[in-house]
Structures are given as C-alpha cells and as structure tokens.
C-alpha cells in the first residue's frame, strides 16, 4: 500500500464512537466520556444498537444511518462483531477507523484479524489496531483512550510524538509524559498492526509539522526492508528514539555459525536502528530523558562541554560521566574567557572547567559564567549544575537560567538533584523549555545522544 494519509484519524472533523455505552464499566462509555471531557470541537456521534441516547447524545443504530462524512470511527465492541461493523464503515465511506477491541491475533484469532485487514484494504480505509489504545492529539483534542483521566493524566501540547505497540507501555509512558515539561504532539498505540503498522506511522510522523521528536516502543517489525527505507528517510528530518521489547532470542540457540550466533534477532534490530540514525533507549527513563533534550536543544557543534556548578562533588561526578561517555570531553576554557572570569568573579572561584562558583553563588555569578561560556568558541555545550540546597541558589538562579536559555545558541541543560524545593524549580525551568536532569548519568548520556545524532545528520550519506 502506498503512503497512507492518517490526517483524518488524528485531526478528524467528525468522529463516530461505535459501542458507546451507558454502562460506565464499558470501554465505549469511557471513550465517549473522554471525548466530551477533552473538549473535542468536531462533530461527535454515538453508535449503539441497543440505546437511543448516551450521556445526552443521540445514539445511531448503525454508522450507515449517520448523514455526515465520518473522518474517524472508533470501534469498541466484541471482536466477533468487528468485521461486520467495519464492513458498514466501509460502505458508509468512513475515512479511517480505530479498532480498540482485543480478541484477535494476540489470543490466536489470526483469521479474524486477517478478515479485518482485508476489509480495511478493500475500502482503502486506514485502520489502526486491533487491540490498541488508539490515538491522542492534544491539539485536535482527540482522545480514544479508554482509561479515565483521573487515572491517567493527559499531557499538555508539545512536540514529542509517541508510537507504541503495547498498550501497557503506552499508558504508563503517557502518564509520565504528562509530568514532563515537553508535552505531546501525538500518541499512537497501534496494537496488533493488522493493517496500519510502524512503517505507515513513521512515514506519517516524518511529514507531520507538529512532530519534532518521535519516541517509539516496538516489539517486532513487520516489513523489514520497508522499515529500513522509512527509517533512513525519517531520521534525515527528525530524531527517533526507540525502545525495543523482546530482546532475547530463542533463535540464537539454533544458530549454526559464529556469525549467526552473535547476530541474533535483537542484535540485527539494534544494528538497523544504529545504521539508520535511531537513538537507542535501554529503558523507559532513557526515552524520556532523550526526548527532553532532543525536543528543546539545538545540535552541538562539537563534543566539548563546559560545566558550571555550585557544588564541587557533583561537578566531579559529571566530569567522570563525560570522561566515560566515549563521545564528549571537558572543554578547555579559552585564555580570553579565563581573563574575563578572573576579573568578574570573586577570588575564591578557581577558574577551570568544571567552573565551581561555590555554595554561596547566586544569580549574578551564574549570569557571568553563562555569558562567558556562551561566547567562548572552545565550548560547544553547557551543563549548568544548580543545587538548590546551597545558601545562594534560589528562584532567581532558575529565572536566570530560563532567561539565558532564550539567547543561547548552544545546547544548555541543567542538573538539579533534590526533593520538593528542587522539584518546584525543575517544573519552572522545564515548562520554559529548559531540560533538567536529576543525575549526572542522565544529563551526560542525554547530551551524548544529542551529539551522536547531530553527527549522524552531518555525516551520514543520503
């Protein structure tokens, strides 16, 4: 199938919820409720054979009875009724559908899933799922998740899109994203991928102007060579961070050469990700840490990092991480910068990298250090450590960092470790687009991944 247009699925002007129910325990009830809660501004229709009205909305007996063009039908009914309903959607010229229902290939009902795919293909009707959470787009305010908002917080509008094969990983990470400052462009949970698969979705997001960064969780890839072509294309435009589930392979046991024994299925996936410029996450926390820096920071021009700190030991730990990263190194502060710093900072500050401004450092010392580092051509990116437990650090330092962020053309990230007072400032800074990390490891690894991707973009052939 050629490139699919998924716009009607993610920016629908009209939605039909098939299986909308009056019973609050039913999936179809929660979906409709969420649509109403999210303040979706398009036209919304409820379809249920056994009801005339749900939550004050008129119910249609079938999608065929709706006298409107339907951009998206969300199907939440028992699996065995899905093919017939999908057929009706096709006849009603519904543009796209999402089958939330489970009970297909994941429990062995392969034929039923095949039936679904062939109906979707016949009507040329992009169909997501089955066995998925569907989609969320805070811009168009669509939300097909059957998880109530009091249980799963909804992220704010942002530039990160999240593709997810698994519903469980999807809802967990989505909840975490809601707590991050960067915000969501699109969430797409595609489940069994009977028809629309990761290749279609990556292709769509590659061209989506609202998506700056893609994060994805996948277990298996269905069309390897098509995936390679898409991967190559998308990473020339925007970063993709991938977490792969199912990394151990039983196939390795059966291998009969050294090459095959080394290169199991996960190793091959990892090789393809690496070759075509994906950023590989080892864990959920990596996905979020990398997304944060990719979303807001420009590419560094090189590998030299300048560290500003108000605590010696944390500066040492961050320097160690830089030394071990294999990619980054500590910058040599230029002589000109050293002279300026010596003139403008108190004598107790030792002029070297990491630049330890001392525990009583307030916003003034930070400002001095930041502006010198920013104009020093021997420094490619800045790691500002701000420990809010110190006497000098308060909201004025956070404000200075935020203010500085606006003018800096180099990557600037913050490392702040601590509990409530620190968290408050982290939220302040992150909501202004400044990435804040809570460990030297997370901060330096994220910066290292940004550099690796920048180098891929610069050096990899088309």
């Amino acid at each position, binding site marked *: 199938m050629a490139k699919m247009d998924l716009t009607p699925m993610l920016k629908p002007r009209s939605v039909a919820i098939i299986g909308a129910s009056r019973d609050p325990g039913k999936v179809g009830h929660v979906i409709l409720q969420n649509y109403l809660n999210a303040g979706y501004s398009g036209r919304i229709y409820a379809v249920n054979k056994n009801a005339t009205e749900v939550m004050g909305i008129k119910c249609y007996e079938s999608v065929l009875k709706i006298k409107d063009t339907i951009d998206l039908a969300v199907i939440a009914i028992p699996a065995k009724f899905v093919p017939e309903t999908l057929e009706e959607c096709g006849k009603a010229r519904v543009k796209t559908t999402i089958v939330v229902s489970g009970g297909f290939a994941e429990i062995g009902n392969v034929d039923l899933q095949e039936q679904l795919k062939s109906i979707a293909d016949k009507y040329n009707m992009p169909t997501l799922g089955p066995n998925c959470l569907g989609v969320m787009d805070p811009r168009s305010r669509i939300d097909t998740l059957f998880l109530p908002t009091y249980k799963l917080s909804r992220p704010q509008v942002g530039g990160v899109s999240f593709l997810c094969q698994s519903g469980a990983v999807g809802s967990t990470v989505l909840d975490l994203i809601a707590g991050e400052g960067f915000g969501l462009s699109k969430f797409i949970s595609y489940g069994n991928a009977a028809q629309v698969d990761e290749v279609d979705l990556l292709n769509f997001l590659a061209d989506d102007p609202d998506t700056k960064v893609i994060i994805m969780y996948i277990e298996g890839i269905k069309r390897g060579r098509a995936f*390679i072509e898409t991967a190559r294309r998308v990473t020339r435009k925007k970063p993709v961070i991938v977490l792969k589930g199912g990394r151990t392979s039983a196939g390795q046991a059966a291998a009969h050469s050294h*090459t095959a024994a080394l290169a199991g299925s996960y190793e*091959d996936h990892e090789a393809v990700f690496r070759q075509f410029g994906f950023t590989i996450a080892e864990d959920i926390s990596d996905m979020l840490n990398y997304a944060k820096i990719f979303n807001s920071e420009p590419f560094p021009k090189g590998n030299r990092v300048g560290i500003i700190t108000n605590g010696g030991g944390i500066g040492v730990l961050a320097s160690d991480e830089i030394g071990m990263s294999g990619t980054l190194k500590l910058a040599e502060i230029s002589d000109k910068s050293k002279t300026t710093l010596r003139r403008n900072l108190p004598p107790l500050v030792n002029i070297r990298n990491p630049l330890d401004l001392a525990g009583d450092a307030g916003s003034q010392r930070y400002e001095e250090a930041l502006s010198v580092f920013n104009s020093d051509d021997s420094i490619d990116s800045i790691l500002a450590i701000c420990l809010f437990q110190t006497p000098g650090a308060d909201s004025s330092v956070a404000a200075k960092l935020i203010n500085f962020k606006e003018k800096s053309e180099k990557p600037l990230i913050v490392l702040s470790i601590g509990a409530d007072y620190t968290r408050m400032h982290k939220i302040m800074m992150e909501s202004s687009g400044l990435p804040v990390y809570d460990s030297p490891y997370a901060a330096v690894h994220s910066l290292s991944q940004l550099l690796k991707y920048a180098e891929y973009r610069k050096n990899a052939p088309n």
Partner: protein
Amino acid sequence: MDYFDGKRILDRYHIKSAESRYVASKDEAAEFASGGAIVLKLISSKALHKSKAGLVKLGLKGNQIPRAYSELLIKGASLKPYKIIAQKMSEPGIEIILGGKTDEQFGKMILIGLGGIYVEAFRDFAIRSVPITKYDATAMIDQLRSRDVITHQGKNRKMIENLLMSMSALLQANESITEVDLNPIVVHEGSYEAVDIRILKT
C-alpha cells in the same frame, strides 16, 4: 558449500584467503608444505566445530606432518565422508571474524568483530544491514572496543574498510548465499588472509 568453491567466490571479490589444497595422502601433504609449516584440517559435515573436535592441526613441519595426518585419519573414521585440507600456516597476527547472515526481517546482514577464540568471550562485534556505505564501514570499525588492535592503531583501517565493502558486495550480489563465516581472518600490518571459510547456500 565446498571449501574451494567458497575460496573461489572470495577470490572473485578480492578477499584474500590462505593458500590451500585438498590432500589425499601424507606424501601430498608433505609435498605441499615443501619445507614450510602447514595446517591440516579435516572437513566433514558431521563436525561443525573443527577446532573443538581436534580436527585442526596447526604449525606442522617435517615429520610432524605424516603423524598429524595419521591422527586425522583415525578421527575421521566416524566422520565419513570427509576431506583433508592442507593450508600454508599464517604468520601470527590479530584474528578477526567477518561474516554475513540473513535476517528474516531485514535480509542480508554483515558482521565484523574480534575473532578466533575471542568471539564468544568478548562479544565485540558490529552489525549492519547490506549493502553498507563507506560511512557504515567506518562506523562499524569505530563501534568496536578492539578497533585499535584490529586496525593496528589505524594503519590497517583503510584495508579493513575495503574488506567490509567487498564482503557487502559479495552478500548483496549472491542472493543464494545465506551465510558466510570467515573466522578467523588473520590480520597483519598491511595484509590479511582468511584461514577458515564457511559459506552456506540455499
């Protein structure tokens, strides 16, 4: 695939391998050695790991040759049909592995790593999908922890990059070749030779 059919394919792609031939007697083996050191290997489809099974006799000279040949004949009794290969002994060098395989999703893949007895112990290798570009070849070498050892501090880098490009071309052009295992290839400064060749065809 027969060892020498494999060797001929490597020749076509300018991938160098140690001078070898089948020998059918002690005398033929001694004649092939012509005073130098050789290796004798017994090849049988019933024995996949030749060295583990004691089917590779290294560094044979003079009267060690007929003795080793007789030992292989005894071991071979239960491994029929088999053949014995005599190969010129390589100078010691760094052993690497270069191979290819077919992934069910991504198709042909190429692999390079630290080879010989270190393959399993260090698992230091890099993989890419075929065909690779020059950029990929460089990145594969950079990915190895043993890159300085393998490239002799960079002096062999160009040679190994070319070797990767040749293997990629071989895998790409020969659809029926599903797996290649050159382990080890012995790398010296400025030269190399594959001393074991395994190629599988559909």
